[in-house]
Structure formats: C-alpha cells, structure tokens
C-alpha cells in the first residue's frame, strides 16, 4: 500500500496568512491554506473553542503595535 504524499503538505503553513493576510501572496515560501473563519469567534466568543470546525485565528501583539505606531505618525 502506497500513500501518495502531497509535497505541498511538507511545507509549513504561513503564520501571517493564518492570521488573515500575507504580503508575499503567491511568492510566499510558506503554505497559504484557504480556510473558513468562525463567525461566532469573529463576533467575540465561540463555545466550541478548540473543537470548532472553523478557524479561530489568533491575534498577536505585533498587530496592535503596528496599528498604534501608525496612529501616532
């Protein structure tokens, strides 16, 4: 029995794209996996937590810093 392994699947997912946006687009060396956002999590809270079949993208401090810096210019 041979399992066909997609060479793409060996490339790690792109953390920027997982958050929502990656400026490198098709030139990115990491994988951009199209996924569906959980609308409950988008609203603020989803009781499924890690069991949810849709994505709960994690925000990180870097974005907040970027937005603040922009506001101060």
């Amino acid at each position, binding site marked *: 029995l041979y399992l066909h392994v997609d060479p793409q699947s060996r490339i790690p997912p792109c953390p920027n794209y997982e958050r929502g946006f990656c400026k490198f687009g098709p030139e990115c060396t990491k994988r951009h996996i199209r996924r569906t956002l959980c*609308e*409950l*999590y*988008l*609203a*603020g*809270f*989803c*009781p499924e937590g*890690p069991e949810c079949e849709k994505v709960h993208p994690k925000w990180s401090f870097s974005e907040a810093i970027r937005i603040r810096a922009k506001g101060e210019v």
Partner: protein
Amino acid sequence: PITQVDLESLEDKPWRKPGADITDYFNYGFDEFSWTSYCLRQDKLRDDYDSNKLMAVCGF
C-alpha cells in the same frame, strides 16, 4: 445569525478548565467578565448600532 452566545446558558465552561487556552474561546482579548460587559453594552446600543451591519461591513 446568532453571533452572541449567552455565557449563563452554558452549563459547562470549558475555558475554565486547567490547561484550557481562553483565546481558543474568546477573541479580542475578552474574558468572561469583559465579554459580558461588552454584550450588555451591545444590547444597549442595539438601536443605533447593529452588529449585523458591522458583519456586513466586514464582508461576512
């Protein structure tokens, strides 16, 4: 669509369990306390601020 879940209606609060990551459940840095106060405020503002409108603006 129902976008706000009433925490009180949930018998089981899995994010309180040891090892649980609260950010798996709550977005925007919310916790139980701040999420409840946000929902209360949303209820108050519902007339002039419809969360469905915001969803539409966001493209969802």
